[in-house]
């Protein structure tokens, strides 16, 4: 069933690549403008050492930024759930802060936190942590009153109600947030690398752009996409393990507001 559901998108992708190849060949489109997919694949292979070298810093920044968002997002969500001051005072601010386009803040981050890893990490965090906060807070507070009453009836403490009821109940929604967050972390890191970096896939894309090396640029984009897909796959796989009690649906879950 699962193997089969992958068959169709793969077939469509393949067909699109073949069509692309054919159109570029037939119309003699310049490589600078739009290289053939086979050429991009060739560059992906022949320049693999270079691409991998730049992929590593991007990869660990994404993972680090994502983990930071996860921990930070869950902590903020717990505070939102249990502290009225945080809920009334900070929640509206957190929501409003999401209106500011984070991409626009990237140069400012470089001014504040320098050209190093820190500014990239912080930008990834800033972009990726919001869905975690929203989903976790929704999950923690959407527990049916009956469950809480039942637990209190058996003398459950606030802490027990949190660990044994609210948190597991929130798990499916937290994973929904994580799946959005991991893709946003990719954006955060790459945008920061556009602005200021000496390495990373974002840097490689800008550099290839400056050299008018479109095939390398597209190879870098392809590598980045594959990495993003793999990271998403890891989160989705973890979800299957952790949220084993959920009856699966075809579409991905996520109560992202």
């Amino acid at each position, binding site marked *: 069933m699962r193997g089969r559901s992958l068959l169709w998108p793969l077939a469509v992708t393949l067909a699109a690549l073949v069509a692309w190849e054919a159109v570029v060949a037939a119309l003699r489109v310049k490589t600078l403008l739009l290289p053939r997919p086979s050429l991009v694949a060739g560059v992906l292979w022949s320049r693999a050492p270079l691409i991998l070298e730049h992929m590593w810093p991007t990869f660990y920044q994404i993972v680090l930024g994502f983990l930071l968002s996860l921990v930070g997002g869950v902590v903020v969500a717990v505070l939102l759930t249990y502290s009225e001051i945080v809920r009334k005072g900070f929640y509206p601010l957190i929501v409003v802060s999401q209106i500011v386009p984070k991409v626009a803040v990237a140069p400012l981050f470089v001014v504040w936190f320098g050209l190093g890893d820190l500014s990239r990490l912080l930008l990834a965090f800033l972009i990726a942590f919001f869905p975690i906060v929203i989903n976790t807070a929704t999950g923690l507070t959407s527990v*049916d009153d*009956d*469950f809480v*009453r*039942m*637990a*209190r*009836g*058996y*003398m*459950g403490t606030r802490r*027990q109600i949190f660990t*044994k*009821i609210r948190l*597991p109940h929130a*798990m499916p929604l937290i994973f929904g947030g994580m799946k959005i967050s991991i893709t946003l972390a990719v954006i955060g890191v790459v945008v920061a690398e556009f602005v200021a970096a000496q390495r990373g896939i974002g840097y490689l894309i800008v550099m290839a752009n400056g050299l008018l090396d479109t095939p390398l640029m597209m190879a870098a984009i392809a590598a980045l996409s594959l990495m993003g897909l793999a990271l998403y796959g890891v989160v989705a796989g973890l979800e299957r393990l952790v949220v*084993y*009690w959920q*009856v699966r649906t075809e579409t991905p879950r996520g109560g992202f507001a």
Partner: protein
Amino acid sequence: MRDSVVVDGVGKTYAGGVEAIREARFRVAPGEFLSLLGPSGCGKSTLLMMIAGLLAPSRGSIRVDDAEVQGPRRDVGIVFQSPVLLPWRTVLDNVLLPVEMLRLRRTDYARRARDLLSMAKVDDFAAKLPHELSGGMKQRVAICRALVHDPALLLMDEPFSALDAMTRDQMGLELLRIWDVHKKTVVFVTHSIREAVFLSDRVLVMSPRPATIGFETDVKLPRPRTMDMQEADEFNRYVGLLRHSIEAGTRP
């Protein structure tokens, strides 16, 4: 013998000024099966939640085992209208939840949990998740959970109302069987007259909001109760009696 539950002049008025219960006054003897019978929304569940220590009465006092109720107690088991099983826990782990909450040793109670499940005929499902069980089976598991820590008092809030009629009769019989073995005091809330007569030693009828206890009768049918009794004249005499008292209470 001292009473298991004493409800003394208890009333409940909600914050908005809605008076749910005007005055309730009754006692439950140890080992007695008492039903609170009344129409929907008459405040009988509210009364039960106050006995459970989950709601505070506005007036009067409630004593369980000679101690004033000030919050949930460890020697009380509660069965709610819906099973409220945690979907991520297996049946056995759901039954053991009170043991964990009360910080008792799990190993000391795992055996008892299994015995209860086997008595409720759901032991084959001990390792299954709740969504694999039928409604009746889930409620049996909820009853096992309410009994696992061996409480003296079992509070049941319309536990069978979500089940179909046939399952409901079956569950009643099984509840009586378990009650007979474990000898608990039971306070059972229901809006089904037949269910109240079939299960109880004594039935209290609650009038609609603001509720008072309007009528009370001992049910002197022999035990163990059997399904056939539901056709007996004596059974139907009790049903008639209670129905008249409810109709008298609801008449404007």
